[in-house]
């Protein structure tokens, strides 16, 4: 930030590239670290596993890592909506499980798969509505009500499917999401589309500011950011477009699920950053009393957050069914805790009001890497739980400390 004209009130958009970079580092120093610790962890973990296991950096493993992360990422993104309100949804995983049981029953009853997906999503919305109602209107702590649903839905799943049931889901369209790849050229096309959209939004914002004679950041920042995004995306697409099959039949291309997850994150981020609803969600998460006095319907915001969370959780359940090809009564019991861990590890604050969807995606990548890497090293599942738990504890500590540093109180309001 430039201080050449001390009397003027700035907007943080002033100054050249150097001032902007300086301002960024000073924000980081003040505790606004965002996903930086998680990105650091990602780099350290990949170096560690890469040096310990020759399989870690194989094309097949990296592609698998991306696909396996899709489920967790979607669930973590879902949970961000309630975590932003300093709430929690422990039932998201099993609710998705029950939704998939209902999906299976729809298929069995002869409904087309798309109708089954629709019914499952409606079920998710209803679950969110009920959870939100308990939290917002009755005032039951979300931890308790979602724990009750977590237990209850496990029972519902058993009742719907019967004991120990595993049922195959034979829908090629669903199976394709996690198991099929886009033709290489489509992968490139989608990447270019994403870059064009991202760049146009940036230019559009600049134009709007310039029209009102407001300071604008140097164009070089926007271009650099787009270039970095293009480089990273280009590298991933290029990598995934290589043949990664060890067998005779080649496997190449971006898995179909990846553009779906990227699209969901983009859409969700747009809603959170650029709509009144998103602004109010952050406000309620930051200070519910201030939000209420500003005329925001706090109860409606809470209910909507739970509805969005449960519906996105159903999407994650759909990815799960697509990957393993079966519905089972035990689905979704353990993944929800990994989802919360992913969000927190990525830098979403459990105290509410701070965090972004992309943070949850990065956190999900870290959690999946730990799982994947330790598995490749032949270590037991027990070790994996211990390490994941430690990482979560570390992330929650960083969250609490950075909140302290940025001047907030440590109590939930």
């Amino acid at each position: 930030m430039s201080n050449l004209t001390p009397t003027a009130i700035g907007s943080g958009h002033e100054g050249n590239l150097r001032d902007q970079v300086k301002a960024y580092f000073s924000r980081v120093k003040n505790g606004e670290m965002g996903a930086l610790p998680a990105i650091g962890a990602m780099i350290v973990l990949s170096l560690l596993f890469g040096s310990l296991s020759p399989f870690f950096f194989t094309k097949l493993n990296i592609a698998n890592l991306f696909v396996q992360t899709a489920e967790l990422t979607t669930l973590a993104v879902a949970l961000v909506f309630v975590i932003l309100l300093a709430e929690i949804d422990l039932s998201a995983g099993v609710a998705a499980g029950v939704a998939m049981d209902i999906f299976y029953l729809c298929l069995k009853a002869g409904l087309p798969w798309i109708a089954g997906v629709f019914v499952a999503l409606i079920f998710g919305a209803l679950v969110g509505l009920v959870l939100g109602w308990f939290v917002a209107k009755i005032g039951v702590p979300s931890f308790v009500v979602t724990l009750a649903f977590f237990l209850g839905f496990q029972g519902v799943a058993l009742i719907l499917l019967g004991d120990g049931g595993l049922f195959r889901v034979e829908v090629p369209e669903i199976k394709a999401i996690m198991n099929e790849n886009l033709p290489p050229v489509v992968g490139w096309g989608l990447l270019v589309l994403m870059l064009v959209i991202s760049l146009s939004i940036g230019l559009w914002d600049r134009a709007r500011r310039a029209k009102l004679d407001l300071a604008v950041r140097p164009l070089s920042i926007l271009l650099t950011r787009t270039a970095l995004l293009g480089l990273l995306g280009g590298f991933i697409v290029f990598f995934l477009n290589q043949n990664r099959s060890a067998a005779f039949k080649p496997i190449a291309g971006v898995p179909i699920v990846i553009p779906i997850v990227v699209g969901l994150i983009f859409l969700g981020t747009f809603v959170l950053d650029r709509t009144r609803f998103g602004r109010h969600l952050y406000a309620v998460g930051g200070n519910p009393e201030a939000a209420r006095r500003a005329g925001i319907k706090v109860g409606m915001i809470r209910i909507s957050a739970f509805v969005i969370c449960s519906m996105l959780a159903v999407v994650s359940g759909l990815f799960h069914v697509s990957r393993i090809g079966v519905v089972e009564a035990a689905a979704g019991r353990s993944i929800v805790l990994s989802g919360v861990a992913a969000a927190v590890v990525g830098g979403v604050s459990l105290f509410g009001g701070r965090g972004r969807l992309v943070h949850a995606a990065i956190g999900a990548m870290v959690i999946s890497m730990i799982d994947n890497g330790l598995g490749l090293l032949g270590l037991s599942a027990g070790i994996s739980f211990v390490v994941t738990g430690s990482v979560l504890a570390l992330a929650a500590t960083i969250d609490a400390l950075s909140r302290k540093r940025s001047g907030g109180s440590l109590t939930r309001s």
Partner: protein
Amino acid sequence: MDTPVIELSGVKKSFGPVDVLKGVDLKAYAGKVTALVGDNGAGKSTLIKGLSGVQPYDEGVVKFNGEVVNIHDPRQAGAIGIEVVYQDLALCENLDIVQNMFLGREEISQLTLNESEMELQATKALQSLSVRTVKSVRQKVSSLSGGQRQTVAIARSVLRNAKLVILDEPTAALGVAQTEQVLNLVRRLADSGVAVIIISHNLVDVFKVCDDIAVLYLGRMVAQIETKNTNQADVVGYITGTKNYDGAN
């Protein structure tokens, strides 16, 4: 004298058997700062809650710019131009200054938030109060000092075109320099043509910035005097009930 922005006459409020306000009169004029002083339990908060619509009065006449109004909820108080800046300020620390100033009344264009328009208006509102202590309108409120937060809360009422701004203990939690800044801000706010009512326990501040002093004692308005016609010792007397106000002295 011209019409007061707000004129209360014979306002009463009781909670069960307890009469908190026993027929209170109060006037506040555009461009003037009126202090509302009184000991704990004198009824200051109850009086303000009636004006802001949080707890409507039981009896009495409220005139806004000479017209009788019936304020029964906060939204309506805001709509006619009454803004209250509470002691705890009601700001979201995780949002920036612009976002806080427009909270609940965001500007929208093409279905999305019109950030640039809001930023422009917020900057103008701060400039109209000659605010110099704020570096950037895109700073998060968590990074602001107590005085700066008070500034943001007051500027928010300017943005809403308030005709009457009520400040509840605006300097209670502030240091010396910041108190000075906020008092100057209050003065400029009044000079811009707004009627300001300040609730304060600090008589030094009151005498520094207020044009009128209204004293509540056990639910009655025992004095409303121009600051220049009185002194601190007398006002302390009115507040504690050891001295009676006998008109002009």
